[in-house]
């Protein structure tokens, strides 16, 4: 049975069209995300590993090397078994730093463009023959099915179709995140097709050729030499070498790396792939031995590498042969498409861009897109060119293994990425260079010699290791041995540069946490755009900044240093996805420079540590977990503290802002943290900055206006000490940050005012009887004078009578005025104190007290010097004296004396002058055991209904608000003696009241 070229071509075209449709439908979301994002789709897409080498070549490999063919699939099984140690960390790096290829990964870790270039060249050299091999396999399958030599035209057509597919579904747009769901679904479909095709041929081999499994077993038993030939290479061949090579190829081959890491949508998918992909390989290979034995049984003259086609042709069923052909096309096309896309990305980032960076006046996105498309086309065409050159190819398996040895050269470097922090750029470059050199000499130069390009026949292995050396064992040992040895040796002898150390910190979980973050020279997103425009072009620069802002959910007015640092990091990552990590870092470093003279941002360090701990919360165990719980507990205490608290760095940057602070200030915590103190809205900025500059650690009853209403706060601050240094000449403050507490006293202040008012009312009540009596006497006098005046005609007497009435009226007026003055007290004035004579205030208090103490005939002596002026609130001080004198009256016996005296105390240079006032009586005195309680609210020794217990607490508060002190002399035995110490100051010098105008 043979086919016509056109029939096969049509079948291939229909199949590829179906592939187009599937990819298109997935791209346009016509296929549900449940399917496109399903882990199974991801697992199947990894089936790109099985190329035409696996589909056709495995049977030939099995015939020549028996069970050794399985090593190519057992290696990946081991690699995927080690997913948590091997693949997951790579995936993390790829996702976190938006890397798009193996070359990007090495360029990132070793911070070297040369590393990227070397890896790209190695991958190109190692993989291009492999692409040629796929074209060759499809051409060969055409030749077998048509029984005619395959014309080049068909191979070229195949290449063109793949090129269109790759351009449409893999290079349609430039995005920082290389995700192509259409492509992934199409490749998954291809994997399913080739598995189905191979399985169908395998089933036919067992049941169509042998009849059943038992017959096949009998046939095998009948010829023990055949089974022995199957097992013998496994004992004597390079089993371990091949497992190692396929182990590294499973995730390092460009197509594998691309599908496994770059196209990965969810980490969970990798978990499923850790067993799902090996299962796919197992199922794929289950059919190989029966197909091999069926081919041998049929004694077909077709090359064993194409037994899959030979057996299906023998079936006489055109559909089976066609399915096998489509399976082969699937295997080849998937490999070519993905490899080309992966190589084009590498070549773009590490060859094209470093060589010819586009002019900033051009549209960067367009340039990149067309650059990539050009590279895709170029790579496929080179593959086709090599296919033409490699007509005398050494075989599917050999070419495949050459690629495997090439990618295995990256294993030492990968150890430096994942496990060995000490590895250096120089060590990597020297080791990889040596490995590549060996690989070229062992494989590529002989291959070029074979096709007539290189004139000298080289046999390095025979020369170095002897003529009987197995080529795979010898080549792997020699190239990787040199590579690893030089990598380790040079790494140990060379030093890491600063940029390398930063990259190491990003790669390793246990690397030092705190990096040297500094403030940026650019201070706004607009400046970011302007700077980037100089190198990316105006439009691209603007779009990149806008894109990064949108991803970080920031707005165009962002000014916070740490947010700008985040913006810079995000832009670097996004550029890394488009231009590669080295170029992205160069652009960002040169255009978005950091200010070397600034200090590290403490808030960034704190956030860095907190983010890291937050992400790792469920994974911290043992003592570390307990310490973290303790940390959370302490942080929660600070957060839920009913006092408003915030902490500030040396640079006035806000490090923390607790919940109470958030509620009090109505400034969102997220917005406050990382801001500079001066950027806070008023009055908070001035209030906190003024207090921060004050030498005092505490300030009491600071009044400010918030939303037009007065608020009172107690402010406290404490320095959080930095780590001590040995630098004794250091002039900077010896602390790393300051914590500020704000105690809101507004309610307390209002309550105190209420209480004072109540006390005043109570006093007025007590005074009422005296007032009535005092006013009653002159009124009686006025009444009798007026009555006599009615009958008086003598002008002299009338005049005297009127003077008497006026005198009595003045007396009443004095009483009423005193009462009014006393009753007008309230909150302490916001504008400061006034200056007045102390003795007049005392006189007034005495007059008021006398009104209610008429029965005791007490004597009041005011010894205050008339010239002594004091700055205070007159009404409040009057209240102090009234309360103290009333208490003195209550305690005194009839006829007792109450004295008030005052003297000026000259203080030393550092302090203000004070007035020391004494109020003493000759009463019963205060028992020593009650002295500690007399200033407590509601504490009274008077009978119920006679005292509120608020008098002395009110006195205490008023004196405290004036910055003074009051105490009772415990040693005074003749009665009670109160001392009041008040500062003598001008209103402008007030420190107890720091007032802030509203709206300042």
């Amino acid at each position, binding site marked *: 049975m043979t086919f016509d070229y056109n029939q096969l071509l049509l079948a291939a075209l229909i199949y590829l069209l179906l592939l187009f449709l599937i990819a298109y439908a997935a791209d346009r979301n016509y296929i549900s995300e449940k399917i496109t994002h399903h882990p199974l789709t991801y697992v199947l897409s990894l089936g790109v590993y099985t190329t035409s080498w696996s589909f056709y070549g495995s049977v030939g490999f099995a015939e020549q090397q028996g069970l050794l063919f399985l090593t190519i699939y057992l290696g990946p099984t081991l690699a995927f078994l080690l997913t*948590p140690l091997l693949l997951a960390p790579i995936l993390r790096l790829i996702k976190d730093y938006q890397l798009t290829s193996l070359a990007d990964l090495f360029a990132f870790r070793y911070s070297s463009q040369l590393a990227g270039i070397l890896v790209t060249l190695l991958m190109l050299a190692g993989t291009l023959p492999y692409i040629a091999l796929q074209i060759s396999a499809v051409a060969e399958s055409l030749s077998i099915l048509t029984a005619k030599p395959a014309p080049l035209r068909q191979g070229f057509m195949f290449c063109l179709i793949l090129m269109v597919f790759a351009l449409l579904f893999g290079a349609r747009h430039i995005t920082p995140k290389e995700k192509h769901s259409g492509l992934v679904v199409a490749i998954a479909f291809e994997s399913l097709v080739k598995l189905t095709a191979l399985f169908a041929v395998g089933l036919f081999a067992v049941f169509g050729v042998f009849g059943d499994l038992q017959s096949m077993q009998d046939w095998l038993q009948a010829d023990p030499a055949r089974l022995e030939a199957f097992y013998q290479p496994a004992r004597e061949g390079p089993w371990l070498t091949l497992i190692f090579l396929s182990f590294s190829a499973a995730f390092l081959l460009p197509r594998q790396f691309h599908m496994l890491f770059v196209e990965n949508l969810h980490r969970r998918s990798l978990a499923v792939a850790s*067993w799902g992909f090996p299962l796919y390989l197992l199922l794929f290979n289950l059919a190989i031995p029966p197909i091999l034995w069926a081919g041998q049984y049929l004694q077909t003259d077709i090359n064993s590498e194409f037994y899959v086609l030979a057996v299906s042709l023998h079936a006489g069923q055109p559909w089976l042969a066609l399915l096998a052909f489509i399976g082969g096309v699937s295997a080849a096309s998937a490999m070519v498409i993905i490899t080309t896309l992966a190589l084009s990305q590498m070549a773009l980032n590490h060859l094209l861009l470093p060589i010819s960076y586009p002019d900033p006046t051009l549209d960067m996105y367009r340039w990149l897109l067309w650059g990539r498309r050009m590279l895709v086309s170029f790579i496929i065409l080179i593959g086709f060119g090599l296919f033409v050159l490699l007509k005398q190819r050494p075989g599917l398996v050999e070419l495949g293994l050459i690629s495997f040895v090439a990618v295995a050269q990256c294993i030492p470097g990968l150890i430096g990425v994942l496990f060995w922090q000490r590895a250096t750029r120089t060590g990597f470059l020297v080791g990889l260079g040596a490995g590549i050199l060996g690989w070229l000499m062992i494989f590529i130069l002989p291959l070029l010699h074979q096709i007539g390009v290189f004139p000298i026949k080289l046999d390095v292995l025979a020369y170095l290791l002897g003529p009987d050396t197995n080529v795979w064992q010898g080549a792997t040992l020699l190239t990787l041995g040199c590579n690893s040895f030089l990598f380790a040796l040079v790494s140990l002898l060379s030093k890491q540069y600063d940029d390398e150390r930063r990259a190491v910190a990003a790669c390793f979980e246990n690397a030092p946490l705190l990096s040297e973050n500094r403030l940026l020279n650019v201070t706004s997103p607009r400046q970011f755009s302007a700077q980037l425009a100089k190198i990316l072009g105006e439009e691209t620069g603007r779009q990149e900044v806008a894109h990064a802002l949108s991803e970080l959910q920031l707005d165009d007015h962002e000014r916070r240093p740490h947010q700008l640092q985040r913006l810079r990091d995000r832009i670097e990552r996004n550029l890394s996805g488009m231009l590669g990590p080295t170029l992205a870092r160069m652009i960002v470093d040169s255009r978005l420079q950091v200010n070397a003279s600034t200090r590290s941002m403490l808030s960034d360090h704190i956030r860095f540590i907190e983010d890291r701990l937050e992400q790792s919360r469920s994974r911290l165990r043992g003592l570390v977990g307990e310490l973290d719980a303790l940390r959370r507990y302490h942080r929660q205490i600070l957060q839920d503290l009913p006092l408003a608290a915030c902490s500030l760095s040396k640079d006035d940057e806000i490090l923390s802002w607790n919940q109470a602070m958030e509620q009090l200030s109505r400034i969102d915590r997220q917005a406050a943290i990382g801001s500079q103190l001066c950027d806070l809205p008023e009055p908070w900025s001035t209030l906190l900055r003024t207090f921060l500059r004050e030498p005092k650690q505490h300030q009491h009853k600071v009044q400010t206006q918030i939303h037009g209403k007065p608020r009172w706060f107690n402010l406290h601050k404490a320095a959080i000490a930095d780590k001590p240094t040995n630098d004794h000449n250091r002039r900077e403050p010896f602390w790393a940050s300051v914590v500020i507490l704000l105690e809101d006293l507004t309610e307390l202040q209002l309550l105190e005012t209420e209480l004072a008012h109540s006390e005043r009312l109570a006093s007025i009540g007590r005074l009422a009887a005296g007032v009535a009596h005092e006013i009653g006497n002159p009124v009686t006098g006025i009444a009798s004078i007026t009555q006599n005046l009615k009958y008086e005609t003598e002008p002299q007497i009338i005049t005297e009578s009127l003077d008497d009435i006026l005198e009595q009226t003045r007396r009443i007026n004095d009483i009423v005025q005193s009462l009014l003055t006393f009753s007008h007290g309230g909150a302490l004035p916001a504008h400061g104190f006034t200056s007045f004579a102390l003795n007049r205030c005392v006189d007034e208090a005495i007059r008021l007290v006398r009104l209610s103490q008429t029965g005791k005939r007490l004597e009041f002596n005011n010894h205050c010097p008339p010239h002594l002026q004091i700055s205070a609130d007159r009404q409040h001080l009057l209240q102090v004296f009234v309360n103290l004198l009333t208490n003195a009256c209550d305690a005194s016996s009839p006829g007792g004396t109450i004295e008030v005296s005052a003297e000026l105390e000259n203080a030393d240079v550092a302090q203000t002058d004070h007035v020391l006032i004494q109020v003493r009586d000759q009463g019963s005195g205060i028992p020593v055991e009650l002295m500690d309680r007399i200033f407590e609210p509601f504490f009274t020794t008077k009978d119920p209904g006679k005292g509120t217990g608020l008098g002395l607490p009110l006195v205490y508060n008023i004196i405290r608000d004036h910055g003074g002190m009051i105490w009772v002399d415990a040693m005074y035995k003749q009665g009670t003696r109160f001392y009041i110490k008040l500062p003598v100051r001008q209103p402008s010098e007030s420190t107890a009241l720091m007032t802030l105008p509203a709206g300042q």
Partner: protein
Amino acid sequence: MPPPLESSITWQDAAILLVIAALCFALYPFFSWWSLQAPPWFMIYLLWALLLLLGFLLQRRFSDHDV
């Protein structure tokens, strides 16, 4: 730079995985001996399936983040 994620894989987990991997390589002499006994051809597939089962059970030990 963003904080690297912490891994929950303890050194014991890593050791188990590495021992399994090493065993797969080190069992080669056993495999040589075993192949001399001419076992059924599909036996190696059964062993392979066993290894897969092990991989499946192991991955359940780790969180999504780690695997």
